[in-house]
C-alpha cells in the first residue's frame, strides 16, 4: 500500500511538474524536504529524552500501572491482543491524554514509547499488528479536546464558536478511524500474511 502511494506521489509530481512548468520547484522541494526531515528528527532528541526520562520515573513508581488499570474497560476493547498489565497500555493512555490536552510535544515521545512496547509483542517485526494500526489510526484522527494554540491566535474571539464544532468533528473522525480499523483488519488483503 505505502509502496504504491509513495511511488505514485513522486511519479505524479514529476509528470505534473513537467506540465505546469514547475519541475525546478519539484527538484528543489525534494532536496529541501530531505533536509527538513533530518532537522525534525534531530530536533526531537531533546524533547524525546526529557519525556522518556519522566516516563521512566512514572513507570518505576507504578504510576503508569495505576493509570492503565483505571482505563482498562476501554483499552481492552480497542487493543484486545495487548495483555491488560502490559506497559504499552500505560503509554497508550498517556499518549492519548497528552493528545486530548493538546500537548503535542509530550504526545509524540509517549506515542513512540507505546510503539516500542507494542513492538515487543509483535511476532513479525516489519509488519504492523492490529493494535499498532488501531493506535496509529486513533492518533492520526486526533482526539484533541483543546483548540490548538495556533488556531486560538489566528481566530481571536471567533474561536469560542469553533470549540464545539472541533470536538464534534474530531469525534466523528475518531469513531470512523476505530470502525474502519476493526472492519479492515479482518479482510484478507490486509492480513498479516499478505501485508504490504
Amino acid at each position, binding site marked *: 500500500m505505502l509502496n504504491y502511494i509513495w511511488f505514485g506521489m513522486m511519479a505524479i509530481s514529476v509528470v505534473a511538474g513537467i506540465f505546469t512548468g514547475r519541475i525546478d520547484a519539484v527538484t528543489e522541494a525534494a532536496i529541501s524536504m530531505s533536509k527538513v526531515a533530518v532537522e525534525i528528527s534531530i530536533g526531537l532528541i531533546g524533547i524525546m529524552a526529557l519525556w522518556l526520562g519522566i516516563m*521512566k*520515573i512514572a513507570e518505576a*513508581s507504578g504510576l503508569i500501572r495505576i493509570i492503565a488499570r483505571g482505563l482498562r474497560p476501554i483499552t481492552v476493547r480497542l487493543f484486545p491482543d495487548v495483555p491488560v498489565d502490559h506497559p504499552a497500555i500505560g503509554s497508550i493512555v498517556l499518549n492519548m491524554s497528552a493528545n486530548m490536552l493538546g500537548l503535542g510535544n509530550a504526545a509524540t515521545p509517549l506515542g513512540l514509547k507505546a510503539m516500542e512496547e507494542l513492538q515487543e509483542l509483535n511476532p513479525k*517485526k516489519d509488519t504492523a499488528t492490529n493494535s499498532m494500526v488501531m493506535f496509529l489510526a486513533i492518533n*492520526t484522527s486526533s482526539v484533541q479536546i483543546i483548540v490548538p494554540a495556533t488556531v486560538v491566535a489566528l481566530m481571536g474571539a*471567533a474561536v469560542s464558536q469553533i470549540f464545539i464544532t472541533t470536538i464534534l468533528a474530531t469525534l466523528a473522525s475518531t469513531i470512523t478511524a476505530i470502525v*474502519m480499523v476493526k472492519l479492515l483488519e479482518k479482510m484478507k488483503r490486509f492480513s498479516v500474511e499478505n501485508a504490504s
Partner: protein
Amino acid sequence: MIESIVGSLNAGSKYIIPLLLVGIPLYAITVKKIKVYEVFVEGAKDGFTIAVRIIPYLVAILVAVGMFRASGALDLLLSLLAPVLNLIGFPPENLPLAFMRPLSGSGSLGLLTDLVNEYGPDSLYSKIGATMFGSSETTFYVLAVYFGSVGITRSRHALIAGLTADAVGALSAVYICKLLIG
C-alpha cells in the same frame, strides 16, 4: 458560557506540563523512595536512538509530500474535484485545506492563515477551516514517525483507515459548522 470554558481550558493547559514535570518525580521520591535522577537519565538515553531511527522514514515521506506540493498536482486535482464536491455542499474555498491537512502540518496552517486573512475570522470559511485543522492530524507524518521508530514498513490498513477518518473529519467539519454556525 462557552467563552469561559474555552478560556479556562486554554489558561489551564499551560500549567499541565510544569505540573507533570514536578508531580511525577514528587510522587516517585516521596511515596516510592525512587532515585529519580538516576532513573530519569536511564530513560532519557533512549531519546537519541529513537530520534535517529526515524530519519530514513521521515525523509521518504516528507520528500514525496514536498514534491507533490511543489508540483502543482494538488491544484490540478482540486480543480477537477471542486465542481463535484460543490454539489454535496462542500465549499471550494475549504477544499485545499482538506487535502493539505493529512499531508503537511505547516502547509495546512499556511492555508488556514490565508483563509482567515482573505475572509476574516468571523466568516464561515474560516470557521470550517479552523474546525478541520483542529479536528485532524498530519496522517502521513504520524505514520512515518510512529511506524518508522520501530522499523515497521508493512503498514497494512493503517493508511486507508487514517485517510478515511480524515475525509469523514473534513466532511463533518463542513456540515457541523453549517448546521451550528452557518
